[in-house]
């Protein structure tokens, strides 16, 4: 514990022996390819696959019409009437976004399957489309799903304290209209599914890279009308997920159907364009009012938020509403009103993405705090220090019932300011401005909440059948005294094999090298709960809870056997260096001898004891359901980060570069500091990429313009700055061992960079209202401002 142990996973990964889903090969494997919609909204008039299926090497094709007969629409978690959305694995009757799957073909090779798609004839009747959340709410707007009768998925009002009173009491009301753009973490490995429908056993053996495979089971089982006890979910190494591989169940269902129809194992590997067409993060716009005092005290926030979830709801609106985990950000105000609308449009459906829904909200707050500072003529650091929740207020209860589990936000800002030499930078900025150079400094502090409470979905409808959270772990010692650990947590690069070995090794007084941890996940082998998976920065905390529980049970049994063999009391036994030691007499026997007795020498066991040394534990945090005002503690841990970016912007081009970038994070006690640091870097890279480069842009026809890595710009090594990091360690007040989730980072760079850009542009008096800092756009803002002031003069 606390050691920067090298990862157990890495040996196979650096030698090319990783086991990713596209590496799965089965005898008789056939390959699927998917034809996708070229229209944003259209009626399907006719689908003709007759030419495709006679092509040499084609095994079968599947159409939406067949899917509608074979399956039920996927479960919806929206309240009525949005729960009338009919979501199938292939479009039925209508297409709703460019890239929606329409027809699938299975062939002997991927190439033949793709050739066959060119022989499929689909006749469409194009319809009007709607591409913007606000206009989608107009009464005469085109309907994405006609049977719903509206494009509204969910409207809810979170109202705490007295925001109207605060607006009256304020010295000033700061207003902003903000827009958070569409992007996604775009893991380098795309989605993939291999299904082998085994007709002999009636099992669907499903190999995939879904991050929450057991959570998908209700969607798959009810959708496919296939018994869940014959669905086996298997994952191996996953080439990055970041949330985007959670809602892949439509693809899994599709490949299941294809394997059943083809009577062959079938593989589908998404290509990059397919990924870009159908995996987006939530887009959101905000109207914000912030009542403030002259001295910078923030009295509250009044917000109208419009979230665009694209053409299908999938995990929405459960996902979008988790912004309320961090309702006040890091600030101490009690008056909060958020009117939240989630709306469907004819764009790609959204899903979880690193920082999911909280980053949109936190960016809105961090952007607003800087606007407050600017309008009051105060330094942004001053306004933050004045309004942060103080460390002596911890645990701090937020207006929406979140219980922040410790931290010192002011110290994290001070530390970041020292690391970047804030005062020196301000002086440099001043000097630079005199020479016509534009330097900007941007601060953001965000809460990085982890281990979600699914009880939040009861806000949407009381009968949503999930709440709380849970995870499973199994620890076993075999008859030769060798340890094996199985977890439910489905890793995608976070090093779960390493941390699990560290935790269990510490518990049993052995070395981590002696612990074999099962790689990947297999529902027929690993223990699991239906909430198992890697999401919501939960695995370290949930996995640790489950591992500690299983270790405790197993240690008790080992101690009882050891005590019996040494004729002493179980409570006097200590496990140390691979032995059970009697603390009183100093006598010891090796664990392998106890294991031998437990399994195959079992006539020596204490009377009545069950043989074997296997313990499984299912751990759940203490969560509650929401109250009538929707207050609840929505996550168990609340890590936080402060970022400061210093940039230099060229007003001639609108382009800017990062001069220095500092991060101070606090995720409580660290199991493995090396892994924590890696997560902090990765989250920062996603935020910086999103703020500076990545943007899913649609044209007026609903065509996605940035659909490859040619036009959707993922930062390369030369785009990324060197990251200067610092840590605070404030143990969690509630999580096992004082650890906290880490890894999503709260989208902090989006705030730091947009604040830095606005600060750089201060001489022009330009306000930044978008989360994406596109040089062309910045250049236009400057040009417009300059020509406006010329006109005025």
């Amino acid at each position: 514990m606390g050691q920067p142990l090298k990862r157990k996973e890495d040996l196979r990964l650096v030698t090319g022996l990783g086991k990713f889903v596209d590496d799965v090969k089965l005898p008789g494997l056939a390959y699927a390819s998917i034809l996708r919609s070229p229209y944003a909204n259209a009626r399907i008039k006719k689908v003709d696959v007759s030419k495709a299926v006679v092509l040499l090497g084609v095994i079968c094709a599947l159409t939406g019409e067949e899917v509608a007969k074979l399956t039920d629409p996927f479960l919806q978690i929206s309240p009525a009437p949005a729960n009338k959305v009919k979501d199938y694995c292939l479009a039925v009757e209508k297409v709703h976004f460019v890239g929606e799957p329409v027809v699938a073909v299975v062939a002997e090779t991927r190439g033949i399957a793709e050739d066959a798609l060119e022989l499929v004839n689909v006749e469409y009747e194009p319809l009007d489309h709607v591409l913007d959340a606000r206009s989608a709410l107009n009464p005469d707007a085109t309907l994405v799903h006609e049977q719903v009768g509206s494009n509204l998925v969910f409207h809810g009002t979170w109202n705490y304290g007295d925001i109207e009173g605060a607006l009256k009491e304020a010295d000033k009301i700061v207003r902003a209209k903000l827009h958070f753009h569409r992007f996604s973490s775009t893991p380098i490995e795309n989605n993939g599914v291999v299904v082998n429908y085994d007709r002999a056993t009636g099992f669907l053996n499903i190999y995939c890279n879904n991050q929450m495979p057991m959570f998908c089971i209700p969607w798959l089982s009810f959708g496919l009308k296939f018994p869940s006890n014959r669905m086996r979910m298997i994952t191996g190494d996953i080439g990055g997920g970041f949330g985007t591989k959670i809602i892949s169940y439509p693809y899994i269902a599709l490949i299941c159907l294809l394997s059943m129809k083809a009577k062959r194992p079938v593989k589908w590997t998404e290509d990059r364009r397919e990924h870009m067409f159908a995996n987006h993060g939530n887009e959101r716009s905000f109207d914000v009012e912030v009542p403030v005092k002259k001295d910078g005290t923030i009295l509250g926030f009044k917000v109208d938020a419009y979230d665009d979830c694209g053409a299908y709801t999938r995990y929405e609106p459960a996902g979008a509403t988790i912004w309320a985990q961090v309702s006040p950000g890091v600030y101490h105000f009690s008056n909060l009103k958020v009117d939240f609308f989630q709306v469907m449009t004819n764009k790609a459906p959204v899903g979880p993405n690193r920082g999911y829904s909280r980053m949109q909200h936190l960016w809105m707050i961090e952007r607003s705090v800087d606007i407050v500072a600017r309008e009051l003529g105060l330094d942004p650091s001053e306004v933050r220090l004045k309004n942060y929740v103080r460390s002596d207020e911890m645990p701090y209860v937020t207006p929406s019932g979140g219980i922040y589990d410790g931290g010192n936000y002011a110290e994290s800002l001070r530390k970041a300011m020292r690391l970047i030499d804030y005062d020196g930078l301000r002086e440099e900025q001043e000097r630079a401005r005199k020479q016509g150079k534009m330097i900007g400094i941007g601060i953001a502090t965000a809460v990085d909440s982890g281990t979600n409470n699914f009880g939040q979905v009861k806000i949407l409808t009381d009968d949503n059948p999930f709440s709380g959270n849970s995870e499973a772990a199994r620890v076993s010692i075999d008859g030769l005294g060798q340890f094996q650990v199985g977890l439910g947590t489905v890793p995608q690069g976070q090093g779960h094999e390493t941390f699990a070995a560290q935790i269990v090794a510490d518990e049993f007084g052995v070395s981590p090298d002696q612990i074999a941890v099962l790689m990947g996940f297999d529902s027929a082998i690993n223990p699991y709960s239906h909430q198992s998976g890697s999401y919501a920065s939960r695995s370290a905390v949930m996995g640790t809870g489950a591992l500690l529980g299983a270790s405790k049970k197993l240690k008790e049994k080992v101690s009882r056997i050891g005590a019996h063999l040494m004729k002493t009391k179980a409570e006097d036994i200590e496990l140390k260096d691979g032995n059970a030691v009697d603390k009183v007499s100093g006598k010891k026997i090796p664990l392998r001898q106890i294991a031998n007795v437990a399994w195959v020498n079992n006539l020596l066991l204490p009377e009545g004891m069950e043989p074997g040394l296997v313990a499984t534990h299912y751990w759940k945090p203490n969560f509650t359901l929401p109250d009538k005002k929707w207050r609840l503690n929505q996550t168990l841990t609340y890590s936080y980060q402060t970022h400061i970016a210093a940039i230099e912007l060229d007003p001639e081009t609108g382009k800017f570069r990062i001069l220095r970038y500092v991060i101070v994070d606090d995720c409580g006690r660290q199991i493995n500091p090396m892994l924590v640091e890696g997560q902090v870097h990765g989250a920062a890279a996603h935020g910086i990429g999103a703020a500076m480069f990545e943007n899913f842009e649609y044209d007026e026809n609903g065509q996605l313009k940035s659909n490859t890595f040619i036009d959707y710009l993922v930062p390369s090594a030369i785009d990324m700055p060197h990251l200067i990091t610092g840590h605070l360690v404030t143990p969690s007040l509630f999580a096992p061992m004082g650890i906290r989730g880490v890894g999503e980072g709260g989208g902090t760079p989006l705030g730091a960079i947009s604040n830095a850009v606005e600060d750089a542009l201060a001489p022009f008096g330009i306000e930044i209202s978008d989360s994406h800092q596109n040089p062309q756009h910045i250049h236009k803002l400057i040009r417009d401002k300059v020509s406006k002031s010329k006109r005025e003069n």
Partner: protein
Amino acid sequence: MKSVTRSDIVQVKCKINGKEYTGVAEPRLLLVHFIRDELNLTGTHIGCDTGHCGACTIFMNGKTVKSCMVLAIQAQGADITTVEGLADGDKLHPIQEAFWENHGLQCGYCTPGMLISGLYLLQRNPDPTEDEIRRGIEGNLCRCTGYVNIVKSIKAAAKKMQSEGGKSAQQM
């Protein structure tokens, strides 16, 4: 479009990681698919199909290529090294050790390409600056690490390789 028939299929012979391989390929088959699917060397990965992500980077005749940008038939007679060929038996190449020791990978999907590009850089420039390292791996995208620990790993690899007299930098 007409599907490819057996008569279009070409036999491709090449040397990979010091071993002679013979496989069959349609003329349109990309080298990366040939290596992964025909020869079962799955360490080389695919991430973008457009030559941007670099996950499929390999050595071909001493230079790095993105194997999704080369047809299998263009590799006729070529001398290729993939990630599987970096280690010497059980002994890891210094660049593999350096990535492991410096947490230069998380999910490990971009790693094979990153190792190859990193090594190619060190063959040409045994003691690169941070800026030169960043330029050297510009064609390889990583979404997990923010590149910080990759840069650190390549620096560490440079040191290791210098201390053993540049033996492991020989042509691949």
